[in-house]
């Protein structure tokens, strides 16, 4: 009897002892690499947090957006009810432009003065230039990346398209969590097990960003050669999309976009829109939810 009691006590003490660290961490969480690269400093407070500005942004050079001075079409006296200095939204009428503006304020949780000079709404501002990039980016993400993925994997398509709110989620800066490495670090074979640690950390970030475990994309019998499962292929494409966003469209001094930005802990981002700049919110729904379970792995090992 004493022996059993003794063994029980040992086990309980060990279990309790093993629980000390997580409790301590809950009270005073350790700064982990998974919670933000540049913690502290936003564009509003003027602290430059990204020491590698060339990596992210500047504003896309291909779009005709580079104004160093006010454009000629902005008049000295602004006439309300008329449109001036409209570039990307050229095809919209007045009501359409105002509707878009209303959507921006709601999706970004900002007021008009965040982008506009209120006495002359046509004046160009840096945030306006960024907004133009963003509009182009949304359209390009959807057409170049996501639509082509849907075409290749029709069973994995989800109703809805990305919109401003998908990334911004009601805040002027997108939420940053769970960092990932640029896609060239995913090239195999890795040169060392230390480098491979960067990949592993990214994989953990992806898992938490999508709220899934490793088996969603992988058959862990071999991570290296068994990349046949569709979620794996889709993830490759998504990764290139994220790299694209970070390299081409993101303004300088902005924290990098990661999987979490859109997915926010869900397999299918919840804040989608009907299409492009249409602000109609759409409930994300997979057309074939069952296919998202990895059949390459025996159900005994479970799905997400």
């Amino acid at each position: 009897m004493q022996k059993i009691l003794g063994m029980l006590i040992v086990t309980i003490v060990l279990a309790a002892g093993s629980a000390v660290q997580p409790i301590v961490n809950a009270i005073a969480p350790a700064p982990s690499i998974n919670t933000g690269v540049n913690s502290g400093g936003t564009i509003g407070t003027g602290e430059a947090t990204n020491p590698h500005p060339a990596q992210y942004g500047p504003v896309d050079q291909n779009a005709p957006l580079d104004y160093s001075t006010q454009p000629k079409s902005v008049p000295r006296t602004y006439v309300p009810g008329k449109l001036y200095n409209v570039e990307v939204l050229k095809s919209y009428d007045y009501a359409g432009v105002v509707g878009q503006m209303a959507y921006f304020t709601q999706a970004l949780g900002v007021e008009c003065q965040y982008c506009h000079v209120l006495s002359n709404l046509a004046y160009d501002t840096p945030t306006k230039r960024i907004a133009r990039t963003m509009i182009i980016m949304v359209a390009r993400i959807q057409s170049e990346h996501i639509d082509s993925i849907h075409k290749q994997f029709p069973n994995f398509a989800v109703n809805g398209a990305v919109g401003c709110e998908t990334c911004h989620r009601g805040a002027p800066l997108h939420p940053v969590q769970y960092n990932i490495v640029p896609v060239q670090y995913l090239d195999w074979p890795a040169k060392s097990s230390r480098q491979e640690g960067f990949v592993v950390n990214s994989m953990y970030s992806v898992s938490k960003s999508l709220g899934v475990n490793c088996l969603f994309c992988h058959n862990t019998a071999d991570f290296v050669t068994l990349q046949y499962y569709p979620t794996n292929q889709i993830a490759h494409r998504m990764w290139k999309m994220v790299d694209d966003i970070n390299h081409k469209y993101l303004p300088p001094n902005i924290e990098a976009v990661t999987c979490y930005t859109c997915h926010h802990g869900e397999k299918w981002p919840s804040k989608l829109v009907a299409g492009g700049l249409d602000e109609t919110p759409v409930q994300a729904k997979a057309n074939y939810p069952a296919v998202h379970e990895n059949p390459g792995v025996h159900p005994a090992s479970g799905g997400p």
Partner: protein
Amino acid sequence: MADLPFESVYRKRGNTLFASILGGADPFDFWAGPFYVGLFGVIAMLAIVVGVATLFIAVGQYGDWDLWRANIPSPGRQYGLGGAPFLQGGAWQIVVICATISFFAWMLREVDICRKLEMGFHIPAMYGLAVSAWVVLQILRPLVMGCWCEGFDLSFTGHLTWVSNTGFRYMNFYANPFHAWAVLGFFLTAMVLAMHGGAILGTYNTDKDPNVEMRREDSFWRDYVGYSIGEYGIHRLGFYLAVFTLIMSDLCIFTSGPLVTDWVQFWHPF
């Protein structure tokens, strides 16, 4: 195989579990060659025969006879805790039932043998712990998780794939503290085993007097590491190390799934 020279002195009928619980004599209280039979031996043998036969039939039906690759998979998720058709998991269920019966019967047979030889029951207790690992993995945890699919496939490399996938299902199994304790237990056990084996193999028959040999052992260990645990103590140490390791192993897999689904997050809950 001939009996050991002193064996006849010990081969006595009676003193079995059957006799003490049900009264009367165990109908199978005899030896077959060197093996003790006993009621539990018969039960074990029946279960083994049925289980192995099912194994062979199933492997034949699946088609792959290779010793490493042959695989009897557990049922799919859709069957939950119910039965499954033979080739879709039913074979697995039958083999697991037979194996479990045979393990328990084997353990009780060991108890019988201990009773006959009037020795302590440490061996069946230890064996029971080992069986508990099987029971936790194939029966208890699937019951708690609500699905026989949670048991591992019966296959050489197949069960390794199961281990790999189950480990990654919980993100990083190395972060499971019970797993860490169990691994420590395994490595310590191996080290202490090498030390004990080396001690006896180093000193046996080096002197006429066994007390001198024992003192030589004690002297060496005191010189080498400052402490000699003694010939009784080392067996206590080894036994309880093995017990500790197995208990930690049981806990490490039983908590994965029912209690914790992400062992990395376990350390950073919020």
